[in-house]
Every structure is written in C-alpha cells, then in structure tokens.
C-alpha cells in the first residue's frame, strides 16, 4: 500500500447512561450556578454515541485495518458493558472523583481503548446529544481535527 496515503476506520457505538454534574469541591450554590439543571440531585440521562477512529496498514489478505468483530468485542468489553444502562457517577470508578462531563468521558474512553492491539487509536468523538459533541485525541496531535 502507498505510504503517501493514510487510511482510518471509523466505527460508531451507542450506549445510554445517566449522570449528574456535581463536584464536592464547590458549594451547593456554586454547583447549581455552574452546572445548572445538570446538577439536579437525582441525575438525568443521555443516548451517547461514541465514534472510534483507528488507523493502520490495510492487510492485503482481508482488506481491513482491523477485523470489525475484534474491534466490536474490544469496545464492548472495555466500554459498553460497564457504561450502558448505568449511572456514570455511581458505576464507573473513574467518575467517583471526576465530574462525568462528556469531556471527561471522551478522555476516559480514550484511555480504555488505546490498548487495542490491532490498530492505532487516533481519536474518540462522543455525541452527548445531537447538538453537543466532544473529541479527544490524547497526545496524538495528528489525530486532532483541524
């Protein structure tokens, strides 16, 4: 394959989860002011979409950067099993100490997927709603979008 060109595989996954934006480092009033209705005490939920971008050499035998079955199983195990139909605050240890904003969610998902053995994780893009989306590429500057 020509090294002049770079190929990426993009795959979207869906999960639904609840969260509450609240930090013990702020007072009740400040939490309410900063986070607005996202600070409501019993939390609320979203249908999240996670877009995973992987790069690598296309195997001439399969035409693939990575076998989708392998990628799907990895994302299922590393992210979806633990996040889908859960409370991010209560069920995901990383968010006991950190506010489960979608910025932090992007970083957490990136950390969980960067060890995929068969391709290089370029970036994670998360849509919290159709109107809000976030992206994280780690230290991989080339992975950042213009």
């Amino acid at each position, binding site marked *: 394959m020509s090294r002049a*060109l*770079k*190929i990426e595989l993009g795959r*979207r996954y869906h999960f639904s989860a609840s969260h509450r934006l609240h930090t013990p480092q702020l007072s009740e009033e400040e939490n309410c002011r900063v986070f607005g209705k996202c600070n409501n005490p019993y939390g609320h939920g979203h249908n999240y979409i996670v877009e995973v*971008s992987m790069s690598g050499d296309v195997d001439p035998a*399969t*035409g693939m950067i990575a076998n989708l079955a392998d990628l799907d199983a990895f994302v299922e195990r590393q992210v979806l099993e633990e996040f889908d139909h859960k409370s991010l605050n209560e069920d995901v240890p990383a968010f006991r100490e950190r506010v489960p904003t979608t910025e932090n969610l992007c970083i957490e998902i990136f950390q969980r997927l960067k060890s995929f053995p068969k391709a290089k994780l370029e970036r994670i893009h998360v849509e919290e709603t159709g109107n809000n*989306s976030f992206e994280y590429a780690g230290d991989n500057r080339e992975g950042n979008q213009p």
Partner: protein
Amino acid sequence: MVFLTRKIEFSASHRYHNPNLSVEENRRIFGKCNNPHGHGHNYTLQVTIEGEPDPVTGMVLDLKELKEILEREVMQRMDHRHLNYEVAELAGQIPTCENIARVIWQLLEPKITQGRLQRVRLYESPDLFADCYRNGSNGAGKS
C-alpha cells in the same frame, strides 16, 4: 484555507472473499460478509476539497465541476454495480470500506485541478466508515 465537502450516495453489492484462504478461514474472518452471493449497501461518500476561494468567483472549486467529476469517476463506475466483478480498480482486492475509499481517492486526486483533495470519507452504513487522506496532513477533517 477553506474546506468544501460534497456528499453523494450510491448503491452497490459486494462480497468479502479471499481465494487464497480456505472456505473455513474465509468464513471465520469475514462472517456473513462472506455469503456466496454477496449483499449490498447504500454507500455515502463525502469528498472534501481544500483551497483558497478564487477572488473573482468566491469559490474553491466550482461545485458543478466537482459534481461532474464525482458522476464520471464514482457514480458511473460503482452505482448499482457489483464491486467485486465490475470495478476494475478493485480487482484482486477485498472491497472493504478501507479499500474502496483508497480507490476513490486515487481516482479523484488527479482530477481535482482547482484546490486539492483533502479527504475521502466513505460510509458503508451510518455506523461504519473509512477515511483516506494524505499521510501527515491533519487529515480527518470535519465530521
């Protein structure tokens, strides 16, 4: 720099099968994409061109011209075709999103004479796509 993206859709059939592998290996690697009579998708192609707008026309590239290039290079070759049997550029390759995106890049790149091709993104379904761009460019463009 301004980025201009045009989207087109085409429908085609394909099958994943490598004649150098056994029946069992083909089945294991490609799963139902290996079914003998193939299957099809509605593909969505997004082509992004980068450049500075012409001071007279205000355009990076005349969209009419891009539309004609896409019609000639992609639609006529691939729309309502079987990608394994009817697209010469894919002969001997498994017609995955990755390979089709690269072939489309190679077809389009020399035809774009105003601005330059920045990214080809090909969706096989809303949840699966491949990007092709110049290595080292800040490629993955705008979603």
